[in-house]
């Protein structure tokens, strides 16, 4: 389990979720406790005693996220309700405590996967592996970031019954907007169309790493696929896009094998997109300002479409349900090779290599960031 501790500590730092190794304490319990700390605080032992878990992370998020959380906690000191789809589906809401009280923390963690403590940071748990705790921590950072900026804009414009932000909130938002900007544009992906299976896997691996390092997705979310004749190569459900080799399913498009049981929950959206376009590569990420701008306005109905400039925004939930995005996304992709799903993320496609899809995904994010800034300016916040 020690390898898990090291792996997720380095991932927390690499993904910019914490600043350095001193900002995160990771614990994995089998019959013994494994950690990156020299000593184990009695509070940690108490949490393991009170909860039937095998993994725990206590982390102070890097300053930008931490200041966002601090600001949100001022609004509601007990609970943060995310507004993006993925967080609503998987983490529901985020309990908040003022100080680290073991009993109170255990109670909160008994109902939810993670918790924010105002004087400490984020605590998340898992019952299977540290990966769960890592994912929950990453989700909390994403959910609070998106909620923060979405609420500021919708509040300013009076949309979605969002309260108008006060001066302090606007000042803070203005101050952190520049550091929150997407990474400078750089497309590292090859323009060569992958031919063999080995080349396809290599191309998917490179694309996954590229969108994670460009912060266009938070590691375990998003998905990637590549079509080759009658086959589709697609990332497995819950796979980490920066660790794809070994986590890619190769499945026949016609459904003649059920090995896609482990494939991404968006498989059907990918398949339908391939069915109605000539594209052969799809990237799906959760670029933050694309998600935020998709929610700018009143909530989007399932059959409605709107645009961020020329980019279509459609509604749809994760997966294959009656209101799944597989029913709305492919048609929007057909015309534009890209679309943003309301409160969820961006899909971009192209033919040939992943180069074009990455280009679209990244430029849409920059476009959405600019659109966000303009919308703030238009509302008199500059």
């Amino acid at each position, binding site marked *: *389990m020690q390898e898990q501790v090291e792996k997720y500590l380095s991932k927390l730092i690499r993904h910019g979720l914490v600043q350095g190794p001193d900002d995160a304490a990771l614990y*994995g319990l089998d019959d013994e406790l494994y950690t990156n700390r020299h000593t184990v605080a009695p509070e940690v032992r108490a949490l393991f005693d009170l909860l039937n878990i095998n993994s725990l992370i206590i982390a102070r998020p890097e300053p930008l996220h931490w200041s966002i959380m601090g600001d949100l906690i001022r609004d509601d000191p007990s609970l943060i309700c995310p507004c993006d789809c993925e967080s609503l589906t*998987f983490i529901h809401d985020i309990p908040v405590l003022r100080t680290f009280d073991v009993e109170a923390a255990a109670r909160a963690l008994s109902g939810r996967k993670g918790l924010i403590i105002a004087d400490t940071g984020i605590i998340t748990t898992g019952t299977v592996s540290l990966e769960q705790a890592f994912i929950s921590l990453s989700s909390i950072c994403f959910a609070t970031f998106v909620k923060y900026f979405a609420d500021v804009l919708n509040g300013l414009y009076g949309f979605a019954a969002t309260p108008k932000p006060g001066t302090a909130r606007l000042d803070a938002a203005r101050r952190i907007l520049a550091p929150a900007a997407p990474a400078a544009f750089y497309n590292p992906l090859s323009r060569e169309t992958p031919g063999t299976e080995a080349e396809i896997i290599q191309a998917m691996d490179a694309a996954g790493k590229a969108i994670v390092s460009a912060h266009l997705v938070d590691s375990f979310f998003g998905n990637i696929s590549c079509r080759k004749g009658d086959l589709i190569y697609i990332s*497995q*459900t819950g796979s980490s896009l920066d660790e794809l080799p070994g*986590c890619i399913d190769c499945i026949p498009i016609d459904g003649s094998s*059920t090995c896609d049981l482990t494939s991404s929950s968006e498989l059907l959206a990918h398949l339908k997109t391939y069915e109605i376009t000539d594209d052969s590569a799809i990237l799906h990420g959760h670029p933050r300002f694309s998600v935020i701008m998709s929610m700018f306005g009143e909530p989007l109905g399932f059959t409605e479409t709107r645009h961020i400039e020329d980019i279509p925004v459609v509604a749809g939930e994760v997966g294959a*349900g009656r209101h799944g995005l597989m029913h709305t996304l492919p048609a929007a992709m057909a015309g534009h090779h890209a679309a943003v799903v309301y409160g969820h993320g961006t899909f971009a496609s192209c033919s040939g290599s992943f180069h074009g899809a990455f280009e679209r995904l990244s430029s849409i994010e920059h476009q959405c960031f600019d659109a966000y800034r303009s919308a703030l300016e238009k509302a008199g916040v500059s």
Partner: protein
Amino acid sequence: MQKKRGDFTLSALSIDLSTRDAVRSTIDPEAGKTFLGGRGIGTWLLSSRPMVDALSEDAPLILSTGPLTGSRIPASSRMMISAFSPLTGTIGSCSVGGSLAIQMKRAGFDLIIITGRSRLRLILEIDNARVRFVDEDMPVDLPLSSVFDAYRSFRGSVAAVGPAAFSDCTYASIMVDGSFACGRGGLGSVMASKNLRAIAIRGSEHTVMACDPDGEETARADIIRLFDASPAIMGRSGISLCGTAALVDLMAARRMMPTANFRRTYFEDYRAFSAGRIREEQGPRQHACHGCPIACKKKAHSEIPEYETLSHFGALNENADLAAIIEANRLCNEAGMDTVTAAASIACLAEIRGLRYTGTTLVDKVREIAGARGDGELLRLGSAVLARELGAPEKSMSVKSLELPAYDPRGVYGMALAYGTSTRGACHLRAYPIAHEILRKPVATDRFSFSGKARIIKIAEDLNAVIDSIGGCKFAFLGATLEEYAKGLAAVTGLAYDTHDLLRLGDHIYTLERYINTLRGFRRTDDLLPERFFTEPGTHGPGIEVRPIDKTAFEATLDRYYKIRGCNEDGTVTAERLRELNPCRNR
């Protein structure tokens, strides 16, 4: 029936078949709060007679619903049947679908406890509060479909045992509503030993009203959203569309499909019984347990077998004849016997004799078991007894005499441990590590590693004890988590248990089961796997090496598991440990 907030008084019907008495009573609310219902309450009731012989007059047969049964929480109306297993000698609770649980709840009962032995064979008819003991004179070898046909106009739910149970088959099942099997461990033999052919229940006078309907609706919506987001449930090849047959291709691809009595882990002709082939040849339709939107059950002109049955009547017996598999399954259902043990016993016999039973010869073997003739005389006793009788005990691929289902432990190390530690013998459902080791839910774990698995399996056993005690279904947890079900439970019952309160109750229930097994003489050696898995490799595949399990690593993991579970080094549980865990003591 609207209970008061947090009221956990369970309504019980106690039936003594010897005296034909039916007494209504309530169960101590503290027991309700501690054991919830379903498997928990069944285990608690069995713990009052831990040494009873499975087939004796005194042995109880307990049918128990869960606190979510009849609520709007999806996939939560499964019935638990508990008794001691005549096959394994362990505790033998088994979850079963259909509509038995909801009919019982609507009749006003949370559980039914049956003891005694009727002098004449009978059928128990429960029509709301009215209980009738109906003598019956149907031939003992009457196929079960005829018993269900006889009750078609009853408009309730029927649980019945078939010819296998009356001919001393040690793995006789109890069939519910014609399609749903309470299969493992031979609980049908317990029912038959009481001369009880069937239980027919019709209920209409009670409904379940949630204490907090809004909370119930929120939990319901959250759970449905998670079902939709789960590829294993609602995906193109999810169990909703394909049934558990969806696992055939995946298990073959992962080289963990037990073949030729576990001598190999890959069957070249697996496509003969894959979900795709079944769709092409059978065109099955969906059906479901009461209140379940997943509807993983599949039916064509006959019932489509579950993955375990397809694989064991297929690969385990090297049989690529789908029609023969479906027929073998139908015969098992008609005779009322566990398909997994039946198929594994035939594969064991085949290996001992150096033969293969495929196609019609396979079907003939099933007929022989059902009719207790020919090889059926031996086969009906299960592979452990059969192999011992034939002088080759090592050929029985079983733990505590329960045959391994269709997940080869050399390809899933968490499962290897879970087969050993399961309280009812080699069962994949007590911890269900397939969820994370293969289906990547809630996250993926390394299937070829024991790292961290001791605690993972312990927690999963606690979790599944809770699922079985609230009326839930394991498959629902390929999408949703206990977090959402805990909210649902609180909304329905008003009892504000959170996830970890529930896991604590699960720990207590599981440890109680282990304690009962301790009293019944089970020790560490009973938690080991057949030697084959430690000495013979499986079948390798592209990029997959299926090595024998390192026995030292397995035993070290077992040691860690015992330490985490609070057992002694020999795997036993003390009364003191049980007292420590008792939530009543801690409340």
